[in-house]
């Protein structure tokens, strides 16, 4: 069997899994878990086997469903086309699916109607995987629809918990508006070009925009932006990520909003190739910068663990969009790298939140505390995730954020546009604020004092810890060996995005792109030289071990280290409480960053007003933003 069938089989396996769950998995828990695991393993293996031919050998897979190849230069059938960019996102998707499936086994064991959970989960997985590999715009729309409706179902899965149905409803409304825009855009496009194949569209639209296609661009751009939850479309995401089960929140932030990001990249880089225009770059970077800033400031104001993570998801997508919108090879590498890292660390953090929720029954940061004593493994994983997302060296978040800054500032100095310099500054400041809000979680949930209520909380079971460990290792590994990641994953994907003609020729036959006048603008190779995490880490570990031995373990001349393991009530080991008898006292989430919050209270008041929780308002934001994009497109795009 040749590997050109693998993409379709991978998608079909997941959909078949959903079907089989309905048929066989109604009564047996084992069968359900087995089907989900088996389907996700198979699709993971199939996609992983494509790395060699596609990423390393540089082949692009094209596959016509039912062998409906183009006739007389027009694509009729549905085509799957897996280029390096698509495969990059497909890898993120299958990794997320697999880890989430493993995590789900224990995580949802106490929920009712698990068969529905698995059906929806597998449908969602299949649709996102299909979305990133399809070569047909309408097929993409169908996948978006399946994705949206399964996601709505999963959002409201724990419908007994507070706000789940409401979140599902918001998601439904906003998601449907987004889908409608996409559909409308596709319809306009079809009317103009009489084809739905991406490659052919790309060839036809290259440097050839009529008002109708510009309208289609604006609508599709908005529709896909809704799916990637950038501001101002982020409003349903915050609720959905909070109320969905954590395994699903991880899927949402790991692949569902990546699907939107993928769609936007595909749209502006391949289908319309509008990203070379400075005005489009400005538009995307503006959206990205606003997204990362509003996301992170909203996150600072949250005191629910998962809601905070949800706003960080929004904020990190802002980084991805900003970097991708710069339209330099360094920028797109940075964006893709950050997208990948975001999948890893945000997934990890959502899994940690899930472990905390399962053990303690709450994610309210004002009611948690001191969990590091009871859940040390979760704490370790959480710290890895928190340091990664805050971009501390040598974790992966640092490597990608560093590339984002470099890309943004390179853009600033080469174009002489001071706007991009302020984008760089914003990105750095947002990064510090990200650190701040994760310090808040660390203090409020994992360190500090353990409330009596949580005194006998238990560590998460091994099957839940396993995906967390894997993701932690990946977070560290991709941070240290980022040059390998660049070489094998990012560079091919970036090249694919910049060489449109390959994409067109592979699907429509050699010479098609040339005939349509498509020229590839190839960008130079990014250089990274100054940061060598391997040497740095080696130094760090050596010096750390030496210093640790000197400080902590040496005996003799030095003072002893006394710690009271027995837990006897000796005043010596009590927390200093100004001389009083130490009472349980914990500085919780809402108490932190007081000085910052008072200085920004005007801003927070406005933001609070804007996030009213009323779905009508949110729908209005979407429509208003769509109007803005349309006006912008017609005013500035040439």
């Amino acid at each position, binding site marked *: 069997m040749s590997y050109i069938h693998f993409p379709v089989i991978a998608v079909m396996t997941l959909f078949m899994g959903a079907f089989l769950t309905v048929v066989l998995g109604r009564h047996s828990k084992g069968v359900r878990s087995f089907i989900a695991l088996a389907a996700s393993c198979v699709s993971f293996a199939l996609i992983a086997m494509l790395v060699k031919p596609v990423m390393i050998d540089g082949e692009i897979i094209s596959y016509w469903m039912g062998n409906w190849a183009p006739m007389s230069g027009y694509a009729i059938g549905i085509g799957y086309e897996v280029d390096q960019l698509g495969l990059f996102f497909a890898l993120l998707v299958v990794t997320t699916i697999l880890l989430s499936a493993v995590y789900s086994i224990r995580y949802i064991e106490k929920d009712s109607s698990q068969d529905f959970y698995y059906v929806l989960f597998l449908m969602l997985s299949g649709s996102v995987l299909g979305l990133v590999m399809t070569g047909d715009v309408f097929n993409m729309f169908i996948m978006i629809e399946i994705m949206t409706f399964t996601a709505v179902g999963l959002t409201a899965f724990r419908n007994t918990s507070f706000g789940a149905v409401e979140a599902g409803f918001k998601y439904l409304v906003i998601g449907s508006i987004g889908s409608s825009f996409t559909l409308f855009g596709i319809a306009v496009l079809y009317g103009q070009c009489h084809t739905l194949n991406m490659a052919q569209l790309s060839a036809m639209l290259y440097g050839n925009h009529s008002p109708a296609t510009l309208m289609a661009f604006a609508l599709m751009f908005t529709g896909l932006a809704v799916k990637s939850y950038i501001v101002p479309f982020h409003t349903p995401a915050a609720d959905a990520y909070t109320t969905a089960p954590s395994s699903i929140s991880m899927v949402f932030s790991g692949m569902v909003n990546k699907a939107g990001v993928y769609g936007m990249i595909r749209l502006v880089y391949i289908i319309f190739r509008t990203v070379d225009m400075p005005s489009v770059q400005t538009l995307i970077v503006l959206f990205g910068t606003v997204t990362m800033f509003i996301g992170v400031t909203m996150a600072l104001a949250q005191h629910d663990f998962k809601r905070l993570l949800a706003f960080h998801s929004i904020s990190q997508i802002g980084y991805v969009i900003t970097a991708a919108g710069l339209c330099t090879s360094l920028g797109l590498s940075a964006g893709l790298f950050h997208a990948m890292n975001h999948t890893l660390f945000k997934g990890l953090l959502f899994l940690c939140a899930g472990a905390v929720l399962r053990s303690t029954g709450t994610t309210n940061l004002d009611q948690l505390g001191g969990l590091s004593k009871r859940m040390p493994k979760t704490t370790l994983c959480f710290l890895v995730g928190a340091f990664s997302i805050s971009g501390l060296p040598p974790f992966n978040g640092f490597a990608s954020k*560093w590339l984002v800054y470099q890309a943004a500032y390179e853009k600033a100095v080469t174009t002489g546009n001071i706007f991009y310099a302020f984008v760089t*500054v914003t990105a750095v400041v947002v990064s510090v604020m990200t650190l701040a809000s994760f310090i808040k979680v660390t203090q409020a949930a994992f360190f500090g004092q353990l409330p009596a209520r949580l005194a006998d909380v238990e560590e998460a079971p091994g099957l839940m810890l396993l995906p967390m460990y894997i993701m932690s290792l990946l977070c560290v590994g991709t941070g240290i060996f980022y040059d390998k990641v660049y070489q094998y994953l990012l560079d091919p994907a970036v090249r694919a995005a910049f060489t449109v003609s390959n994409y067109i020729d592979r699907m429509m036959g050699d010479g098609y792109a040339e005939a349509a006048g498509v020229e590839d603008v190839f960008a130079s190779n990014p250089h990274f030289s100054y940061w060598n995490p391997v040497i740095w880490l080696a130094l760090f570990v050596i010096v750390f071990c030496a210093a640790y031995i000197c400080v902590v373990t040496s005996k003799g001349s030095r003072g002893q280290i006394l710690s009271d393991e027995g837990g006897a009530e000796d005043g010596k080991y009590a927390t200093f409480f100004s001389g009083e008898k130490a009472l349980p006292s914990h500085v919780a989430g809402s108490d932190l960053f007081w000085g910052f919050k*008072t200085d920004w209270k005007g801003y927070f008041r406005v933001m609070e007003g804007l996030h009213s929780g009323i779905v009508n308002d949110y729908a209005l934001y979407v429509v208003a933003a769509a109007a803005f994009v349309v006006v912008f497109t017609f005013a500035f795009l040439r």
Partner: protein
Amino acid sequence: MNFSLIGALQILFKILIFPGLLFVVVIGLFLAGIDRKLVARMQKRVGPPLRQPWFDFLKLLGKETIVPHAANKAVYLAAPVIGFTGLVVMALFIPVFGYSTFSGNGDLIVLLYLLTIPAVALIIGGSASGSPYAGIGISREMVTMMSYELPLIIILLSVARKVGGSALCFSLGQIVNWQASNGCLAFHPALIPAMLAMLLVIPAEVGTQPFDVAEAETEICEGPLIEYSGAPLAVFKLNTAMKMFIMTALFTNLFFGGVSTASLIGAGIPAIALDAVIMVLICIVVTFLSMSLIHAITARFKIEHLFKFYWTVVAGLAALSLVLVWFGL
């Protein structure tokens, strides 16, 4: 990299003695002593001897280390060492003018992030001690960090723009070399606001008065350090001293990078030694201006005022520089 024995010994020398561990520790504690002496002299006191930080450090080594009930022991004991290690490794990235451990490279953004490691270590350590005072302390430390990070990045970008022109330049080595041929950045009028801003960023980064809101001993009992005693506390105090040197050395490289003597007396060990001496002298001046002077004449900020001060006055100065540099001054 050369793996011969001599090469390995050279690297070991660089890490352990110069410009790594020993150099940073000795000069850091020396600067801390000078700071205390200068403040005392400005208040018409005699002041402690210059060796005082050494005494403090050694004394703390000899005290018991008490790990409180509420603390997470492993994190509590490891945190100061992580901060210390971060500083030692960072010192290797900061050149002594032309001379540095890793062939003249120190990326500004990497340095910016490495600088956060000691602060994060302090925060995590304080958080792990389980004290409510430490909770308030880490909150303030974090807000302080958010405050100075904005001006700091604008300063770094201004310098990068000035040196790189229309090319991306984040290399500290390149910045120093540029100054060797084009004159120190401190004498370029467009960068004077940035230099003033940097002088104000240093004390917040190090945490000296009036920006020591996080460790305010009179209000919140030393904040994150409240439960620490003995050797871990000694390491934290050492970290502060080392940060003093690293920040002033960074300042020297950014704004006075061109005063290397290598061009006068030829490259070699005497030039490096002389450079090191010059660098320490400039560091002393910077310590005086940015830490001792401000310490002696001001009282502690409130945290919300600190934040406002940095995001308006200091960031404004830095942004002024960026705009001036951007339009070719």
